[in-house]
């Protein structure tokens, strides 16, 4: 067993760079997160759909191998923007479920234990604290959204050749931008809610509630006012409209993409404002 000095001594050794310190929060939060077997299993389950898509893409390209079954040898489906839109829609739902489990546990324990003072009395700003905590969600959600999306794209590109890849490079932008829009929106929402509701389970339930109630209210407003503007409070709908635009989908859109962008940015700004109001070293008692 190591023997430690029992006298006080200062520290004069080297220090890490300032910009990298928010990653300390990421490391400790992630370590804490994956202590839960349930979450680890859930994360693995979220990778089942991408795996099926991968098998689908492979099988689709090798349909000639199934001619002995009397099937036609052409591809069963077209791997294009719509395919990746469907993939992202499916994975985004799973990402939301993951967020409902992970998000509330990131900030609420710090708030309920008064630990923010200890974080913020160190050379760490409020923004860096939020970044550190959000990076956990961002990285976990990346594993189930854009990373498998890009894997699928490049597998398809390797099977279909250079021409397909150069002709569909815009899909890469769609996967990246579409995924990050969703990741940032739900991460901000989850963190803002967990900052206000210190009980983890309640914060998780509220997260689900906000999304579904938002959709419900949006429908109600649309029906009562005979308009489509109600969708401006439905985050999932707004994101879907933006995705349709990003993946060049020709389906009907409830709102113009510009309005959807505006609605989503306003939503993100509101979440960020609410979050920063709570992330303080001291609470003002007026």
């Amino acid at each position: 067993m190591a023997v430690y000095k029992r006298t006080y001594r200062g520290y004069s050794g080297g220090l890490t760079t300032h910009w990298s310190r928010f990653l300390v929060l990421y490391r400790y939060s992630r370590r804490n997160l994956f202590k839960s077997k349930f979450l680890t299993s859930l994360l693995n389950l979220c990778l089942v759909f991408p795996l099926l898509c991968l098998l689908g893409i492979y099988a689709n390209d090798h349909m000639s191998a199934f001619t002995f079954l009397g099937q036609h040898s052409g591809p069963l489906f077209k791997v294009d923007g719509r395919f990746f839109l469907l993939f992202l829609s499916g994975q985004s739902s799973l990402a939301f479920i993951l967020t409902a489990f992970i998000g509330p546990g990131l900030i609420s324990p710090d708030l309920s234990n008064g630990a923010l003072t200890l974080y913020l009395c160190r050379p760490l700003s409020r923004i860096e604290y939020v970044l550190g905590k959000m990076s956990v969600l961002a990285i976990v959600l990346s594993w189930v959204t854009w990373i498998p999306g890009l894997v699928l794209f490049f597998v398809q590109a390797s099977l279909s050749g250079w021409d397909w890849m150069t002709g569909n490079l815009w899909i890469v932008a769609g996967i990246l931008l579409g995924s990050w829009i969703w990741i940032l929106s739900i991460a901000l929402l989850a963190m803002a809610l967990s900052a206000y509701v210190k009980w983890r389970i309640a914060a998780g339930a509220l997260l689900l509630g906000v999304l579904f109630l938002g959709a419900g209210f949006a429908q109600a407003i649309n029906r009562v006012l005979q308009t489509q503007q109600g969708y401006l409070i439905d985050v999932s709908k707004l994101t879907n409209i933006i995705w349709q635009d990003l993946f060049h989908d020709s389906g009907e859109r409830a709102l113009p993409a510009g309005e959807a962008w505006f609605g989503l940015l306003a939503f993100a700004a509101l979440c960020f404002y609410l979050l920063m109001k709570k992330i303080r070293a001291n609470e003002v008692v007026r």
Partner: protein
Amino acid sequence: MQPVIELKALSVKLGKHEVLRDITGSFTGRTIGLLGPNGAGKSTLISTLLGFWPVNSGSASVLGHDVARESKQIRALVGYMPENDSFISGMTAVTFIRMMAELSGLPSEMALERAHEALFYVGLGEARYRKLGTYSLGMKQLAKLAQAIVHGPKLLILDEPTNGLDPPARQRMIRLVREMRDAGEMHIVLCSHLLRDVEETCEEVVILKQGRVVHYSNLENERRLNRRFVELELHGDANEFVAAVESLGCESAPGALNRLKLVLGDKIEVSDIYRVAAEKNVQLRRMNFRRDTLEEIFLKAMEHTNGSL
């Protein structure tokens, strides 16, 4: 000598309420006590120095860094032990302290080593692998102290460090503060409403009342001055004795019943008084040194309504 804390007409408002009003002062001591009744603005002053509250007017600097513009540099140099419960219940003490050290910029391995050291130093060595949520109040206070010193700060700010501690735990805390003071590697600001804590550990005392500094006192100087102020009760011819001690350079003020108050000159020791008394054949029936306790200083300061340094 660079001041540890320098305040120039500092005012801080929380909402519409002005909590700190036009505070000016420069403090250089190794241990500075912040005293004041509840609501005097002690914790707000600390929060302002750490950059938690914006400065409304005036300026403040810590170890030469301006709090409004260089709060990150200040926080890198400061260790802070807050008054309230601040910890993460699901973490073991060693993980928690290590994380705090890493957030202060220590490399991971060094942070782990220092976390062990800090926990042993404060007396939590045997309990360092226990979760913080299972700690008693006294242990939590010690864990808060450990996180404040783990990165070797130049200035340690302790906000009510003995709050809720039983007498042995309080003694341990005071002993640790004294040890750190005597190690000479850091300055300490101790904020408390317990006069004894401040008296036992601090060299300088700043007394706040209603957001203003109403008294500043260098306790070391006060103690030294107290030692120069002597009250005597004599038996014999006092006049000759008085003339003799005055010729040595003492100031005197005779009182009733052969009592005499003396302020000793710079080079006069008590032994000189004994010698003169023997020469003049005067008996010293009683000799008292003035003891202006911190409590007296504090009570006097509380009588002021508008003080400045």
